[in-house]
C-alpha cells in the first residue's frame, strides 16, 4: 500500500517538469511497476517507434596507472607499481583493427571509448599524437574518449586552460567525451569516495566547455555507495541545469557501485555492504527518466545489471542498449561478471523479446546501416 503519486503522474501526463521534492517522493515510492509505467510513457513519447538502438564499440583502457587512487576503483595501479601498464600504439591499433573487422568501415560508425588512469607521464602531446593517428588511420572510428577527470589532469600537466586543452584535443581528432567520472556530483560524497578527484563544478565545467566547442558528451551517475537519495536528486538537478544551458548531453547512463577489490567495498565504516539491487536500478532509471526531461537518450547498463534487469530496464525509460563493448576492464575489475554473456546476437534477442526492433546507431545517434560481422569476432577470439 503506497502513497498516492497521482498528482505527479498527471504532471508527467501533461509533460510538466518535476521538482526535486517530487523526485524525492518518486524515489520513496516502492511501486516500481507504477514508476515503470510512467517512465515508459515518457520514453514512448520521445521515441514512439518500436526500436531500441545499440552502438558497436569497445573500451580501450590505454593505461591503468593513476595517482588519484579513488576508493571505489579496483582498476588503477599507483605510479611505480609493477602491475602498471601503458598500451603501445601498436597494441591500441590491434584492438581497433578487431573492432573495425567486426563493425565495418562506414564512416564514424565504430565507437572507441578510450579512457585510462591519471598517468603523470602522459602529456597533451601524447594524446594529440595518438588521437590524430587513430583519426587518420581509421575513418570508421568515432573517438569518444577521455573523461572530464583525465582532461582536467592533462590541462594541469600541460599548464594550459581547459578550453585550449579541449580544443587542441578536438583538433587532433577527439569527437566526443564520455560522462565517466561524474560518480555523484556532490563534494561531500566525493570527499568520502575519492577525495583527490576533481570537484563537482570542475566536472561540470569540462562538459560545459566541450558543449560550447560544439562537442557532444554523455552524463553518468554511479550510485549505491555512500550517497543519499537527496544526493542522487542533486546530481540529476545539476545535469538538468547544465543541459538547459547547453543542450550538449546526448545520453544518460547510470550504474551501481561495484565493490569487489575496492578500498571502499572493504571499509564497513564508510559503506554499508549492501550492493545496490536490480530493484534500485529500475527505480533509479525510471525516476531519472521522469526528472531529466531534457536529456534524449537513456542507455541500459547491462555490464553491471546483467541481461535480465537490463532488458527489463527497457520498460523503465531506457531506449538504447548501449555499446556492444567488446572489451571492458574497469567495472569488471570490481566484480561484475556479465561481460561474457552479451554477444550482439544475445543483445538483439533481448531487444526483440521485449517487443522492439534492434537498430544500430553511431555515437551521435544516427542510424548505421552496416551489419556487424559476428564471424569476424569469432575469428579474433
Amino acid at each position, binding site marked *: 500500500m503506497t502513497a498516492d503519486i497521482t498528482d505527479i503522474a498527471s504532471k508527467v501526463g501533461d509533460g510538466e517538469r518535476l521538482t526535486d521534492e517530487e523526485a524525492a517522493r518518486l524515489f520513496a515510492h*516502492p511501486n*516500481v*511497476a*507504477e514508476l515503470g509505467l510512467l517512465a515508459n510513457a515518457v520514453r514512448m513519447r520521445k521515441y514512439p517507434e518500436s526500436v531500441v538502438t545499440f552502438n558497436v564499440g569497445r573500451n580501450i583502457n590505454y593505461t591503468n596507472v593513476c595517482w588519484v587512487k579513488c576508493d571505489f576503483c579496483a582498476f588503477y595501479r599507483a605510479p611505480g607499481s609493477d602491475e602498471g601498464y601503458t598500451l603501445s600504439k601498436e597494441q591500441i591499433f590491434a584492438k581497433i583493427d578487431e573492432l573495425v573487422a567486426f563493425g565495418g568501415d562506414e564512416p564514424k560508425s565504430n565507437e572507441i571509448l578510450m579512457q585510462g588512469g591519471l598517468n603523470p607521464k602522459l602529456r597533451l602531446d601524447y594524446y594529440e599524437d595518438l588521437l590524430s593517428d587513430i583519426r587518420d588511420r581509421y575513418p570508421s572510428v568515432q573517438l569518444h574518449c577521455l573523461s572530464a577527470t583525465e582532461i582536467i589532469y592533462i590541462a594541469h600537466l600541460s599548464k594550459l586552460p581547459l578550453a585550449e586543452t579541449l580544443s587542441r584535443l578536438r583538433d587532433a581528432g577527439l569527437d566526443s567525451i564520455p560522462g565517466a567520472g561524474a560518480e555523484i556530483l556532490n563534494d561531500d560524497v566525493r570527499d568520502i569516495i575519492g577525495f583527490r578527484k576533481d570537484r563537482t563544478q570542475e566536472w561540470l565545467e569540462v562538459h560545459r566547455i566541450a558543449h560550447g566547442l560544439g562537442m557532444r558528451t554523455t552524463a553518468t551517475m554511479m550510485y549505491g555507495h555512500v550517497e543519499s537519495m537527496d544526493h542522487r536528486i542533486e546530481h540529476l538537478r545539476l545535469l538538468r541545469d547544465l543541459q538547459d544551458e547547453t543542450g550538449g548531453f546526448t545520453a544518460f547512463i547510470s550504474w551501481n557501485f561495484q565493490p569487489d577489490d575496492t578500498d571502499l567495498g572493504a571499509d564497513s565504516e564508510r559503506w554499508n555492504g549492501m550492493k545496490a539491487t536490480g530493484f534500485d536500478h529500475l527505480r533509479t532509471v525510471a525516476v531519472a527518466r521522469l526528472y531529466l526531461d531534457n536529456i534524449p537518450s537513456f542507455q541500459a547498463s547491462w555490464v553491471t545489471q546483467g541481461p*535480465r534487469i537490463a532488458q527489463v530496464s527497457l520498460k*523503465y525509460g531506457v531506449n538504447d542498449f548501449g555499446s556492444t563493448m567488446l572489451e571492458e576492464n574497469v567495472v569488471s575489475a570490481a566484480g561484475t*561478471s556479465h561481460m561474457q554473456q552479451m554477444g550482439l546476437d544475445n543483445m538483439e534477442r533481448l531487444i526483440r523479446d521485449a517487443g522492439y526492433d534492434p537498430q544500430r546507431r553511431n555515437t551521435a545517434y544516427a542510424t548505421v546501416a552496416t551489419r556487424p560481422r559476428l564471424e569476424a569476432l569469432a575469428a579474433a577470439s
Partner: protein
Amino acid sequence: MIYQQQIERAGLTAIHAKVIEGQRLSADDGVRLYESADLPILGYLANLVREARHGDTTYYVRNQHINYTNICNKSCKFCSFYVKPKDERGYVLDPEQVAKRVTDYAEVPITEIHMVGGVNPKLPYQYYLDVLQAMKEARPEAHLKAFTMIEVAQIQRIAKKPLAEVFADMRRVGLESLPGGGAEVFSERVHEDLFWTKADSDDWLAIAAEAHKAGLPSNATMLYGHVENTQEKVYHLCRLREVQDETKGFLAYIPLSFHPERTEIDHLPGPTGQLDLKEIAVGRLMLDNFPHVKTFWIMNTIEISQVALWYGANDIDGTIMDYEITRTSFEDTEQRLTQKNLLDRIVEAGREPVERDSLYNIVEAADVPVAAHEYVGQQANAGSLA
C-alpha cells in the same frame, strides 16, 4: 489520466475493468496479456489483485530441501539433475541417511521439509513410507511436504493400490502436503517433445485433485521459457483454475523459469527478465482462485524476484539449504543469499516480510528468531540466461 491512457494504448482497458470488478479473465484475455509488450502495465494490474488480497504482506518460509534420489527413468530434456538407472553417479538416500540430513539441521529453525526426487523404478513402496516416517521422527514439528504428482504416479504403480489408499498410507506416516513440481506445460505437443515418458497433463491434474480430496493440499507450477507457446501456457493456467474451482486444494502457483545449462536442450537461450516478470503477473491475473503466487528466486534470480513483489507475487521462496536440483545447473554461477539479505530485499521493496508455515499460518518472530547472515541458499547468477 495517464494511467487510463497508457492502459488504453496497450489495449488492456477491458481487462483492467474486469480486474477492478473482480471478474474472471477469459482464455482470450490471457493470450492478450501474454502478447502485450507493456510490462509495467501488467505489473500494475497484477498488483491491484495482489494488494487487494494480501496488502504488503510478503511471505517467506524456512525449509530444508532433500532430494532422496537422482536416479530417474524419465529422461526429461529440460532436466540437468537426473542420471539414468545404472549410472555410477546415481544415488539413493536410505531412510537413515534422510533422517541424518534432517538432524544435521536440527539447530536451524525450519518449519518445513521439502523432499522430491527422481522416478526411480528400483525403489519399493515401503521405501517411500519408511523415508517419510524417518523424517517425521527426526523432526516431528516440521511440516512434511513431499513427492510431485509424477513421483506419486510411480509410487501408486508399485503400490498397486488406489490413489486414495496410497495417500492415506502416506498421511499416516507424516505426509502433510505435496509440492507443485512436474506439471511442466500442459500441452500434448510439448509433452511429446520434452517429457513424453512422464505422466501427462490429465494424469498430473487427476493426481493433484485426488491429493486435495485426501486432505493433502499442494502447489502448482509451470515450467516456461523452453519450447512452449502462448496458447499452451494459457491452457495450462485455465486447467489449473478449473481443478482449483473443484478442489480448492492448491495453495500457491509458482511459475518456474527454465534454465538450459547442462540440459539436453542447452541450445535454447532460456527466458528473459521480462518474461519472468510477465509470468508472475499473468499467473496472478488469471488464477483468481489461487490464494498465493510465489516467486522462486533460485530460478528467477533474486534481482527479478524482488521486483516480482510488484508484479503479483506475495510469496518469495526461499530459505533453502540444500537444493541439489539447481545446484547441478548453476554451480559455476552460484550466489549465496542469507536470511538477512532476503528480508532486506523485501523491506527495500516496500513490503512487509512475514514468516509463514507450509499452510500459510504466520510464524511468530519471537518463536523463531531470525539468524543474521544465516546461510539459506544459492541462486543462479542474474546472467545465467546467456
